[in-house]
């Protein structure tokens, strides 16, 4: 994929489903970058991600992944997306390895070796029961799970909220490693301004379902806050 071609694009996306509301979102994410989304609670950060991964949400406009409209083929789209979120359910009574084997088997391509290596690097035991892990461990597992099916788009929803500095440092190191080869990009939501300013390449500011600012992180954060 060339660096000019967007991995993810929103074209005039507007929609409302219950509390999930977005207004005229235009956005392009290119490979090799880490994108941040900030905004108050209820501003629409998580909602924007839900529009990408939830096949049941209806909207006007177009959301494209690698140039193809995401509507109509949820299975194909989810093969290309690594979604990491506290809300995401896994088989809670099963171990990480079992989760990877059972759920990973649903992907067109899932590398157990990569999963084991990533878990090792993050000092996580594969034999741990998912429900007995801490929030941080669950998110690390989810990241390892996502990495193992080589998506072109990573969506990280509030993964750093309430986490210690060591976790955050490790996470950003891993993200930098992921985007280094410029085949994928990462979109993350956060409440931590300093983190977004220093760690992400571009940032978008959400307010009441609208993307009110978008640009280079240093500029935007410096200008707005």
């Amino acid at each position: 994929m060339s660096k000019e071609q967007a991995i993810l694009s929103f074209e005039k996306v507007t929609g409302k489903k219950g509390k999930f509301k977005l207004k005229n979102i235009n956005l392009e994410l290119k490979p090799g970058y880490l994108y941040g989304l900030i905004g108050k609670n209820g501003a629409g950060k998580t909602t924007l991600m839900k529009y990408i991964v939830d096949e049941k949400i209806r909207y006007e406009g177009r959301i494209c992944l690698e140039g193809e409209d995401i509507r109509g083929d949820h299975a194909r789209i989810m093969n290309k997306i690594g979604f990491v979120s506290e809300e995401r359910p896994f088989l809670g009574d099963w171990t990480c390895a079992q989760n990877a084997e059972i759920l990973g088997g649903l992907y067109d391509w899932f590398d157990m070796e990569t999963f084991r290596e990533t878990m090792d690097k993050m000092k996580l035991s594969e034999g741990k029961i998912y429900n007995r892990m801490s929030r941080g461990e669950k998110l690390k597992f989810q990241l390892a799970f996502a990495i193992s099916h080589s998506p072109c788009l990573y969506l990280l929803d509030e993964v750093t909220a309430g986490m210690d500095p060591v976790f955050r440092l490790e996470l950003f190191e891993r993200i930098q490693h992921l985007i280094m080869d410029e085949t994928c990009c990462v979109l993350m939501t956060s409440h931590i301004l300093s983190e977004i300013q220093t760690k992400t390449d571009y940032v978008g500011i959400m307010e009441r379902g609208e993307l009110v600012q978008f640009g280079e992180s240093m500029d935007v954060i410096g200008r707005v806050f």
Partner: protein
Amino acid sequence: MLLEEFFERKKTWEYVIYNMLAFIFIGISMLIWIMPYQVWQAEDELVFWILFGFMEVIGLDCYLQKFTTYKDNGQIKQIDELMKYLPVSHKQIVRYRQKKLAKICVWLTCISMVCQTVFATIFLHTFSIGNILIPLAFNFILPLLPEKGR
């Protein structure tokens, strides 16, 4: 194929129990469907049909548990929730369930049709289209209707 593997791997002893219950309930309900409907032309025919029909529904529901739910922290949760962020669409899951249900319903329909026809002909020396249509309606069309609507 991926879903087949997924459900096979996710198998736990709870689903073995569900399958046993399905076998028992469907087995009992089949007692009425294999007998020629002409035998049941008594006053309480409808009560029997509803009762046995209800047992069949419970049996089929037990059979489908493996494909509709999963256990998490002692709670029974819907498989659709788990699949939401996985590369499986809602349509694929529904189709898969329909296929599984249709397969078992075809067997039940065939067994009850054959039994009704044979028993009616041999023991009652009669046969009517009802011996074909009643098994078809109660063992195939009615059980598949709720799944079709999903």
